[in-house]
């Protein structure tokens, strides 16, 4: 029995499907493609015809949404609640105004300050590059402003609120895709990676799924770094070292701190977490980046295995993370 692998691009990132039975790769891949198409149609921020785009353009009205979008919003609200708002889906306008307003492959690497109406934006000093610069940011309204009725699948957004489900949405998609792929495969086990956010279902290979822990998901699996074996669950990495651009001379990235409406500037540049699901791993890793210095105590309390990389490269291991110096399996 050999592991079988297929990869392609979707949702603006890399997709990888791994099955423990090579004859099950095709049905598993078909199932993953279908899930990703559904996800793109439901909550892409960059498709004019997506449900999320319609919802964001309909403030002050109760909008009936699909089961998938309701599930994604529910997951995002749960993430916000669990993290005390460190992971907040109402950063949509803030991240768009900061310059991330299209599929990342199409946004300009550099550009001027975003122009904002004075009464809505905030000017905040940024100390990037050792000097004070003015960066206009959009106030994040907060996840409490959203109303979701799960029973009737209706969502109400107040004016000025724009949802971005990018963080939790991709991780949720990895979990959903792994589950669907496993159902289609019918035997063995399946791993699905969406840009380094990893969901698994079914039986793992002997010893567990082998995961190279890197700061950039584009690093080849044969590259240098810690390799861990994960028997089940999900793995996610959040990093400020990827998806970077500049506006007004300030280097920006895609992880927004809801408290400041700006990209985070804490001590950790990359955090990897192993959890029961890819979604929960992603919630923890993103929240850790946002929480900054408080992340270690918070992750320790969460009892999740985690690996944090400081801006200077110092690595911290939290919880039952395997000893990187022990003999490899």
């Amino acid at each position, binding site marked *: 029995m050999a592991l079988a692998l297929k990869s392609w691009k979707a949702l603006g990132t890399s997709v990888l499907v791994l099955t423990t039975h090579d004859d099950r790769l095709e049905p598993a891949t078909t199932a993953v493609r279908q899930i990703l198409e559904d996800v793109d149609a439901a909550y892409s921020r960059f498709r004019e015809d997506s449900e999320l785009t319609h919802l964001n353009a309909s403030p002050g009205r109760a909008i009936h949404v699909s089961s998938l979008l309701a599930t994604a919003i529910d997951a995002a609200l749960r993430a916000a609640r669990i993290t005390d708002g460190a992971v907040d889906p109402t950063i949509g306008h803030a991240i768009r105004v900061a310059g991330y307003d299209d599929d990342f492959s199409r946004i300009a690497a550099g550009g001027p300050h975003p122009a904002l109406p004075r009464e809505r934006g905030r000017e905040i000093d940024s100390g990037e590059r050792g000097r004070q610069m003015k960066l206009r940011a959009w106030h994040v309204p907060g996840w409490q402003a959203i109303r*979701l009725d799960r029973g009737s699948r209706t969502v109400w957004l107040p004016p000025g609120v724009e949802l971005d489900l990018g963080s939790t949405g991709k991780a949720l998609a990895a979990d959903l895709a792994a589950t669907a792929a496993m159902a289609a495969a019918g035997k063995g086990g399946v791993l699905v990676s969406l840009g380094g956010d990893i969901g698994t279902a079914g039986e793992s290979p002997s010893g567990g799924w082998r995961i*190279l822990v890197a700061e950039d998901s*584009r690093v080849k699996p044969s590259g240098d770094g810690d*390799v861990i074996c994960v028997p089940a669950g999900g793995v996610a990495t959040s990093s400020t070292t990827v998806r970077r651009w500049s506006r007004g001379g300030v280097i920006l990235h895609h992880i927004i701190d809801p408290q400041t409406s700006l990209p985070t500037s804490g001590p950790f540049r990359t955090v990897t977490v192993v959890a*029961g699901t890819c979604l929960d791993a992603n919630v923890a890793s993103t929240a850790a980046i946002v929480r900054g210095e408080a992340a270690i105590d918070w992750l320790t309390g969460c009892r999740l295995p985690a690996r944090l990389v400081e801006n200077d490269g110092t690595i911290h291991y939290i919880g039952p993370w395997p000893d990187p110096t022990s003999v490899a399996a």
Partner: protein
Amino acid sequence: MDSLTPTQRDRGLQRLRRLTFGATAGGLIAVVGVGYAAAASYAGKSSSTATAQSTTTTTTTDTTTSSSSSSSTTSSSGLQSAPQAPTTGSSGSGTVTTGGS
């Protein structure tokens, strides 16, 4: 202004007590009612908590796959932990990279 007789004063006090009790009970009912309505659908909260609940993952044994039968748990943080802790591995066939994207 004429002074009230004891009977008139007692009736007035009884009326005042009834009004006070009615207002208190009405307020309590209103608070409970609003509380239920808010619990059903208030800002930022959904009526489903399915994703926060514990689940069980069971795997079976054969010669090539891992053998385990264990449960994920949800910590006080509300985040679900993996059924088994990761172990140290080495790069090889089927290795997948996790990292920022």
